[in-house]
C-alpha cells in the first residue's frame, strides 16, 4: 500500500465477530437466549458459566449455595452441554467459553456434545479462556495450585494443537487486570509476561516435538483485552501489544510466519468505569470504548462483546444485551470505519504514545522476569494492582478524575430506564437452584455408575503419573463421555493436586498518603479504640464463590490505613467459616462483599451462622446490590449496604466507625462481653 495514494481500501473489511457474554439459570433457558441472539445478527457465542461450574463444584455442594445459575449457566455434565448447544450446529459455530480452572473439563464436554451431533473435534472452532494467572491476580475462580494449573493448560495446548487445530486453547487476559485497577503499562506488561509463562510451559510440554509444533502453538494464542474510556491511549495500548507480541514470537520462540505472528485479540470493554449513578451514561462510555478497539485497522479486534448499560445495577436482561449488540452493528454496518487502511499510520502522536507505553511495559516485564516469571511474580503483581486500584479510587474521591454523574454533574431527572418493578435488571428465579440440585441427583442415579467410577479412577491415575508424560485431556474426555459431573472431575483432581488460596495483595499494599480525610478518620478510630479498650477489629471477606475481590481488598486496605485491625479473609468463604472467624477473632464489625447476585441467599445465611455462633456484631454489605434488595437485607439484620454509587471509601469507613461506636454505647463501656 506504500506507493498507492488511495485513502480507501479496495474492498470494505469484513466486520469482527460479534458476541454477547450470556448465560443464566439453566442450559435450556440459555440455549433459547443464544438462539434469540443469533437470530438478531450475533455471529458467535460467548458462554457465561455460573460460579460453581467455573470453580468445579456441583449444584448440591455447600459452596454452591446461592450461586447456581446466577452469573451464568450451570453445566454439570454432558447432558447439560448437549441441551445448551441444542439446535446450534457446532461445526459452523464459533464458541468462546469464559472458563478457566475447569477449562479442560468444559472443552471435553463440548467435544462430547459435538460427537453427539456427529461433528468431529477437528472441525470445532472457538476459545477456552483458560488463563489461570489472571485468576490468581484478579478474578478468583481458580481451583488448583499454580503448578498443576499450568500443567492442565499445557496439556490442553498440546492436545488441541494436534486434535482440535482450529481451537484457541487459551485467551491471555489483560481484561481482568484493568478491572482490578491496572494502568495501561501494567496491563500490557503482565499480560505479555503471562503469555511467556504459558508458552514456556507449552514448549516444555511438547518436549521433542516443540520445534515442529511451536509455531502452530504461538499462532493459536489469542488475547482477551479491555478498553477503557480514555480510548486514544487504549488504542495505543493495543498497538504496543501487537509490537511486543510479534517481537516475542520472533525472538523467543523462533516464529517467522507473518500470519502466525499476528496479534489476535477479542475484547470486552470496561466494566469498572460503568456507573450505577445515571446508568444511561454508560451507553456513551461503551460506544467510545468500542472505538478504541475498532478505529485503527492495524490493531483492530477480531471479536467484540460489549457490556450492557446496567451492569453496575445487576444482571442485564436480553433487551439490554440487544442494545449492546446494536451498538456493534451500527459501528460495523453504518459507519465508514471498515473502509480505510489504518488511519493512524504515520501519526506522530500515536507513535509517541505507543513508544511511551512500550518503554514502560518493557521495564515492568523486566521486573516480573527478575521475580522468576509470571507464576512466581503473582504476589508482586497482585500487590501492584491493589496499589494502582487504590490510587484510581483516590483520584475519583478527590475529584481529580472526573466521572460524569458520579463525582461531577450529579443533578439528574428520574430515569425511566430503571423505573420498573425489578429496577431494570434480570432477576434469576430462586427456584432454579433447587431444580438443578434435583436434576444432578437424578443424573447421578440414572447413569452407569461403574463406568463413571472407572473413568474417574483413570483420571486420578494420570494426574498422579510420574513425569506427567500422559496428557490429562484424554481421561478428561473419557470421564465426560462416561457421564461424570463437573464437581466429580474437579474433586478428583483436588484430591491429587491439593487446594490453594491465592495471595490477597493487601498485606503488601503500601500505606496511603495521609490527607486530611484520612487524618480525621484516624482520629475517629483512635477515639473508638479508647472506648472499646482495644483497637477496632473488622473482618472483611467474601461469602460464596464470587472471586471479584477488588472492592473487598480496597475496603481492607483503607480500614488498615484508618487504624483498624483488619482480618482479611479473602474469597470463597462459607457462612460457617465467616462465623467461626468472627467469633475466634473477636471482631467488632463484619464487612461482606458480593458481586454475583447471590446476596439474597448468602447474607441471611451468614447472619444465621453468626447467630448460631452467638456472635452479636454489626454486619455491613457491599457489592452489586439492586436498590429493591436493600430493604430485605436490612430486615435480615444488615446494618448498612453499600453499592457502586458509594464510591467514596473514606465515607464508608466513617460510617462503619459510627456503626461500631453506636453499638458500643448500646452495650456498655466494653465490647468484650462473655460470648
Amino acid at each position, binding site marked *: 500500500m506504500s506507493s498507492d495514494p488511495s485513502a480507501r481500501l479496495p474492498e470494505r473489511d469484513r466486520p469482527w465477530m460479534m458476541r454477547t457474554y450470556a448465560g443464566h439459570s439453566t442450559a435450556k433457558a440459555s440455549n433459547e437466549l443464544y438462539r434469540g441472539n443469533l437470530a438478531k445478527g450475533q455471529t458467535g457465542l460467548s458462554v457465561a458459566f455460573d460460579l460453581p461450574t467455573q470453580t468445579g463444584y456441583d449444584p448440591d455442594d455447600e459452596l454452591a449455595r446461592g450461586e447456581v445459575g446466577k452469573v451464568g449457566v450451570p453445566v454439570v455434565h454432558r447432558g447439560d452441554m448437549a441441551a445448551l448447544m441444542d439446535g446450534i450446529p457446532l461445526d459452523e459455530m464459533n464458541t468462546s467459553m469464559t472458563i478457566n480452572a475447569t477449562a479442560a473439563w468444559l472443552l471435553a464436554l463440548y467435544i462430547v456434545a459435538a460427537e453427539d451431533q456427529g461433528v468431529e473435534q477437528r472441525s470445532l472452532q472457538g476459545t477456552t479462556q483458560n488463563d489461570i494467572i489472571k485468576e490468581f491476580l484478579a478474578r478468583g475462580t481458580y481451583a488448583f495450585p499454580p503448578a498443576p494449573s499450568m500443567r492442565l493448560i499445557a496439556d490442553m495446548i498440546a492436545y488441541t494443537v494436534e486434535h482440535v487445530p482450529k481451537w484457541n486453547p487459551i485467551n491471555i487476559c489483560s481484561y481482568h487486570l484493568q478491572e482490578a485497577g491496572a494502568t495501561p503499562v501494567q496491563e500490557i506488561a503482565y499480560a505479555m509476561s503471562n503469555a511467556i509463562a504459558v508458552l514456556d510451559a507449552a514448549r516444555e510440554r511438547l518436549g521433542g516435538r516443540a520445534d515442529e509444533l511451536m509455531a502452530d502453538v504461538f499462532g493459536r494464542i489469542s488475547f482477551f483485552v479491555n478498553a477503557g474510556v480514555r480510548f486514544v491511549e487504549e488504542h495505543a495500548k493495543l498497538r504496543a501489544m501487537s509490537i511486543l507480541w510479534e517481537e516475542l514470537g520472533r525472538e523467543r520462540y523462533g516464529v517467522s510466519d507473518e500470519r502466525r505472528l499476528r496479534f489476535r485479540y477479542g475484547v470486552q470493554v470496561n466494566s469498572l468505569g460503568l456507573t450505577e449513578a445515571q446508568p444511561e451514561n454508560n451507553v456513551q462510555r461503551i460506544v467510545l470504548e468500542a472505538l478504541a478497539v475498532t478505529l485503527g485497522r492495524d490493531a483492530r479486534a477480531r471479536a467484540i462483546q460489549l457490556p450492557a448499560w446496567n451492569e453496575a445495577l445487576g444482571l442485564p436482561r436480553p433487551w439490554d444485551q440487544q442494545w449492546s449488540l446494536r451498538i456493534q452493528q451500527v459501528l460495523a454496518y453504518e459507519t465508514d470505519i471498515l473502509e480505510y487502511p489504518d488511519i493512524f499510520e504515520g501519526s506522530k502522536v500515536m507513535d509517541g504514545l505507543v513508544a511511551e507505553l512500550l518503554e514502560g511495559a518493557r521495564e515492568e516485564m523486566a521486573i516480573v522476569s527478575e521475580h522468576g516469571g509470571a507464576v512466581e511474580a503473582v504476589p508482586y503483581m497482585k500487590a501492584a494492582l491493589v496499589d494502582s486500584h487504590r490510587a484510581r479510587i483516590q483520584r475519583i474521591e478527590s475529584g481529580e478524575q472526573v466521572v460524569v454523574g458520579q463525582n461531577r454533574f450529579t443533578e439528574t431527572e428520574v430515569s425511566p430506564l430503571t423505573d420498573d418493578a425489578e429496577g431494570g435488571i434480570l432477576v434469576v428465579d430462586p427456584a432454579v437452584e433447587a431444580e438443578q440440585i434435583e436434576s444432578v441427583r437424578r443424573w447421578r442415579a440414572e447413569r452407569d455408575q461403574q463406568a463413571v467410577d472407572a473413568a474417574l479412577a483413570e483420571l486420578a491415575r494420570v494426574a498422579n503419573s510420574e513425569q506427567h508424560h500422559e496428557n490429562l485431556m484424554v481421561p478428561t474426555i473419557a470421564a465426560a463421555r462416561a457421564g461424570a459431573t463437573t464437581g466429580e472431575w474437579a474433586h478428583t483432581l483436588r484430591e491429587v493436586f491439593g487446594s490453594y488460596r491465592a495471595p490477597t495483595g493487601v498485606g503488601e499494599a503500601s500505606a496511603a498518603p495521609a490527607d486530611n480525610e484520612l487524618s480525621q478518620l484516624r482520629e475517629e478510630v483512635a477515639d473508638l479504640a479508647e472506648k472499646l*479498650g*482495644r483497637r477496632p477489629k473488622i473482618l472483611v471477606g467474601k461469602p460464596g464463590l464470587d472471586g471479584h475481590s477488588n472492592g473487598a481488598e480496597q475496603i481492607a486496605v483503607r480500614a488498615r*490505613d484508618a487504624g483498624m485491625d483488619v*482480618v482479611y479473609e479473602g474469597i470463597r468463604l462459607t457462612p460457617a467459616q465467616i462465623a467461626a472467624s468472627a467469633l*475466634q477473632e473477636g471482631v467488632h464489625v463484619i464487612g461482606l462483599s458480593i458481586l454475583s447476585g447471590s446476596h439474597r441467599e448468602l447474607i441471611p445465611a451468614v447472619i444465621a451462622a453468626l447467630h448460631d455462633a452467638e456472635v452479636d456484631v454489626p454486619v455491613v454489605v457491599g457489592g452489586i446490590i439492586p436498590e429493591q434488595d436493600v430493604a430485605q437485607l436490612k430486615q435480615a439484620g444488615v446494618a448498612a449496604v453499600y453499592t457502586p454509587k458509594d464510591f467514596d471509601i473514606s465515607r464508608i469507613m466513617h460510617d462503619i466507625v459510627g456503626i461500631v461506636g453506636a453499638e458500643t454505647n448500646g452495650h456498655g*463501656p*466494653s465490647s468484650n462481653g462473655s460470648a
Partner: protein
Amino acid sequence: MSDSPSTGSGERPPSANEDQQRKDSVGATLGKRLRERDLSAAPATLNLLESSAPADREQTAELLRELSPAALGGEAPGHIVGVTGPPGAGKSTLLSALLHSWRASGKSVAMLAVDPSSKRSGGSLLGDRARIDFDPADRAVLIRSTAAGERLGGLAPATRVAAQALAAAFDVVVIETVGVGQAETEVADVADTVVVVVQPGSGDVLQFLKSGIMETPDVLVVTKADLGQIALATRRDLSAALRSLGTKATRVLAVSSLPPPQGIDELVSALEEQRTIADIAARRLRARRSGALLDFAAEHGERGLRAVGGRHTAEQLLEQQDPGLDVQALVRVLETAVAKA
C-alpha cells in the same frame, strides 16, 4: 490508645457502675471455665486480655489468678510451641499440616498468629488465618490473629499472657511469628518448644546461627522437601553449623506439606520429645518473670524501674517470689516495691 490506664480516663458512660457489678465475675468465670478445659471460653478470654480498659484490666487480673500455677496445682498442661521463620518459608502450609496431624490424634489446638505488619501508630492487616485450612465446625481449633509488639518480630504483652492462659485449656498452643533473630528470641521467652522454619537455599538462618544473633532453636524445619537436592543440602548445612557450635539438642528435619506430605509425623514426635526433655516448669517460670518485668516496664517505664532500684534488683525481687504466682501478681509485687520506695 491510652497506655496509662492506671490513672483511668474518667470518661465512662453513666451506666459504668451497673456494668461494673454485672461484669465483676467475668474474669474469674472465664478463668474457671478455661481451668475446666472449656474451649468455648477462649474467644472472650482473648478479647479481655487484649483490652486496655481499666475495668477489663481488673478482670484480667482475676482471670489470671484463676489460672496461676497455684490455682491449677502446677503448670498449665498445654504444650506451648513457638513457630517462627522468614516470610515465604512455608509456615502457614506447615501449620495446616501440623494442625491436621494434631487433630487426627484428638488434640485441641489454639494458634496465635502474630502479624508483623502492624505498627502502633496504625492498623494492621491480619491475613494468615485464611491460609490455614481447617474445619470451621471443629470447636477444638481456635485461630486468633494478633497485632505484633513494637519491635520487628516482637510479641505484644497480650500474646504472652494469652499463650499461658490458653495452655490451661488447649492441648497445644502455637505462637506463630515472622522473622529470624529477634523474633526467635522473643518466642523462646514464652514457648516450651521453639521451631524455626527455613526454606531451602536461604542462607539467613545459617548466618544468624553462626554469628550468634540467633539462639539455637529446639527444632529446625527445612520446608519444601519436595524440591529434593536443595532441601537436603540446606538440611546438611544446618546440621553441620549446629555441630560446629557444639549444639547437639537441636533436631533438623525436612518436611513437605504438599500432597503427599512428608516428615510431618516425624516433626510431631520430635516436638513431643523436646517437650519431655525440657524443664517446662523452669521455662514457664522464667517466662512469667520476664513477662512481668516487661509489663511493669511498659506500664511504668524507666522511672518505675529506677524506683525499684534498677532492672537487676527488679529481677532479683521477682526471683524471690513464690513460683506459683501469675504474671499480674508479680507485676503487683514490683508496684508494691515502688510504693514502698
